[in-house]
């Protein structure tokens, strides 16, 4: 099995955005994602639910094209009003057909 280069998109977001972002990822072409709770601090300070739920970290492995779509969508929809950051890194995966 030869490893193939793909994009790992990581999104750190407020807890309230769990459902909207999960739906966005599927709609924009991600075949799957992982999500977990994380703690930390950022430039925005207060989060609407930070005492009820921690921040979320979404991770999804996608093609370069889908990664671009996801980043554009996040920037246009959430960056202005919500505490959200997103970054993409190149990763080597096996069984690349799982992700496309």
């Amino acid at each position, binding site marked *: 099995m030869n490893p193939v280069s793909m994009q790992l998109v990581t999104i750190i977001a407020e*807890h309230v955005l769990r459902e909207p972002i999960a739906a966005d990822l599927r709609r924009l072409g991600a075949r799957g994602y992982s999500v977990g709770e994380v703690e930390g601090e950022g430039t925005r300070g207060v989060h*609407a639910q930070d005492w009820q739920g*921690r921040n979320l970290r979404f991770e999804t492995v996608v093609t370069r094209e889908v990664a671009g779509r996801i980043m554009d969508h996040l920037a246009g929809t959430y960056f*202005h*009003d919500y505490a959200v950051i997103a970054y993409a890194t190149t990763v080597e995966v096996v069984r690349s057909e799982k992700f496309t």
Partner: protein
Amino acid sequence: MTTTELLRANLLSPIVLSFALGIMARVVRSEFALPKDIYLGISIFLLWALGLQGGIELRHSPLQAIAGPAVVTILLGCLTPVSAYLVLKRIGRFSAADSAAMAAHYGSVSAVTFIAATTFVKSQGMEAEGFMPTLLTLLESPGIAVALAIGAVQTNTGGRPVREVLHEVLTGRTMVLLLGGLMVGFLIGDQNWQVIQPFYDTKGAVFRGLLCLFMLEMGVTAGARLGDLKKVGGFLLGFGMIMPLLHGALGVWLGHIAGLSIGGATVLGTMAASASYIAAPPAVRLTLPQANPTYYLTSALVITFPFNLLVGIPVYFQLARWLGGTP
């Protein structure tokens, strides 16, 4: 008992002192905090017990006794967000989004403040009507819906579809546990209730004990936000104390007119005076994202909640006694 004596008795109650200790722990930067999951678990227990017991009591309440109080409760749910919005927008000069966001919190109700009021009334040797938890569920949603509707119109952002917002408020933890508890309690009947009563009884040791633990963590949470008081300014500080008094007085008066007992009118007044901080924040955050969370969380949790706990509840009780003819 004079108002001063009532206030003193209230200050020395286990609930209030637990809350105060929580704040102190945070002020001295203690590492103490209840694990999130335990805190969440206790809140589930409290709401579920409240719903179950309310359901049992509902079986024993004739429909005509509930009708009047139910009508004034819904009326309160529609009035309080509007009054809060107008005061914030016109006098406080807050933006439409910020005003509507805060109005949603003040229009809805805080279940923990409700529990504190019920406990206080009992400590004074009185009883609120058994169907009060039913009124609590009635007051939870309208305020949020009205305020978010004002926000959507005033800020001219279509926002999310009404269906989505309603779904979120109606399927939230508070609603499912309270409304579900009411139904289950109503259905199981007295015989089944007797088996589980020692565990779920809201007058019992388990409930009261866990409530103290919950208040300890509420204190830690409020204490962590004390610094935000500087950010919100003097107006909001005054608003967070005066608005509850006005809404509380209105609630006590309407409760009295609707035929509630002194205990019941006190609890209804407290419900009207309280600001939601469990159901409202996520709904508001998603619907009015441009509103500043520091304003609505600080006013609801750091100003109004402690104010009602320490001062508000005894004042509404005194008012209800005065209206009820026992000064």
